């Protein structure tokens, strides 16, 4: 019975994802002009200011507890909005870079590959930032850190790649 549920779950998931891929409604980017027209202007300094711990400490000292919580939650909502806009921009740039890769230009393809890699790295990190902001929204006075499980995974991956490199050298 477990295997049946597993198989039907896989079937349902693959059909849902296939449909979603087919009928995706993200902003369509076909040229650099589309990117200029649809991009979101993001000031990174504003994001830094909204998430700065020193600013937060100052606010906690100056404001009554209830007002601080209200104000802090507004700052967090704005920071989350920034992250959403960053993600959308990264998605549009990825689409633009994929189109650039279809040109038979080695330099342009290399630049596109680098852009896609950078956008992907950014999108990998965003869930971690969001997680912390959601925790802070629930508990505005939260100042503790969260365990860095992703860096352990990164180290594990780097060691696996090193081992792969050593074994290839040994075979050669």
């Amino acid at each position, binding site marked *: 019975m477990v295997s049946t549920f597993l198989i039907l779950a896989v079937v349902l998931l693959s*059909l849902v*994802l*296939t449909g979603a*891929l087919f009928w995706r409604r993200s902003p369509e980017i076909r040229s650099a002009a589309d990117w200029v027209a649809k991009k979101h202007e993001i000031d990174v300094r504003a994001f830094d200011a909204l998430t700065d711990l020193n600013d937060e400490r100052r606010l906690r000292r100056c404001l009554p507890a209830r007002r601080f919580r209200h104000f802090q939650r507004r700052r967090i909502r704005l920071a989350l909005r920034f992250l959403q806009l960053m993600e959308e921009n990264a998605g549009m740039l990825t689409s633009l870079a994929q189109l650039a890769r*279809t040109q038979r230009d080695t330099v342009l393809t290399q630049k596109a590959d680098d852009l896609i890699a950078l956008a992907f790295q950014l*999108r990998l990190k965003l869930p971690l930032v969001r997680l912390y902001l959601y925790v802070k929204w629930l508990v505005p006075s939260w100042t503790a850190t969260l365990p860095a499980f992703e860096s352990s995974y990164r180290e594990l991956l780097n060691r696996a790649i090193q081992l792969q490199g050593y074994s290839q050298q040994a075979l050669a």
Partner: protein
Amino acid sequence: MRPMSSLRFVTIVLWVVPLALQYAITAAMLRRRVVRIFPIFFSYTVLVASRETVLFFVRYSSKSYALIYWWGDALAVLLGIGAIMEAARQMIPAHPFLRRILGSVWIFGGIAAAMSLLLLFSAHASGPHPPLEWVFLLERSARFLQACMLIVVIVLMSRFGLAGSHCLVGIVVGFGVYAAAELAGLELRSHLHFVTDVTLVLLNSAAYNLAAIIWAFYFLRPWRQDTVNHLPDTDLAQWNEAVTDRINQWYRRF
């Protein structure tokens, strides 16, 4: 002369339509010179079309028919899996970081798929015809593996910004629909015994027709030439730095 039964008519239509479409796709891929970009998908298309053509001339109940059918099926499954991996490789740029991500996805995905296949084999229920049941089990396992790979590739596709009109999306959607439908049919037949063999064959044929129609839609229609000759300067590196800085502040190793 006896009129053809409706079932036989449907069977013939479901057999002829994808065959014609796959010959058309083969010709289109040759004309567009994309065989070098998608060699495995091209091989898959040629194999399936050739097998069906050869089987048309071989007597149905003969040993040769069974050999050609089952060996062709096994090869088609392998090429299908290869085509999915080819789509993933085409989609992801040759950047060390991204290839590392793809490698780790395949490693962890492979482990998860192997564990799931063990579960499937251990839960195998015997039916009245053991050799046929084993064939169903192997086909079910292969389709399960294909469906799992497709889930991973589709998730990656949404992260790598491929437009819905890109032919890689078409290849993956076609395999997705076919693998999911056949897997559901095999489960209903082999484990739950809800459908007969005839219904299963018709369901598989219909699913394959849908896949062939999707592939034909992507390869036979005029391709839009979106020209991007330069990439704009962006603040992507700055955003990345800002986000990394916050992660380093908010997360600590214990």
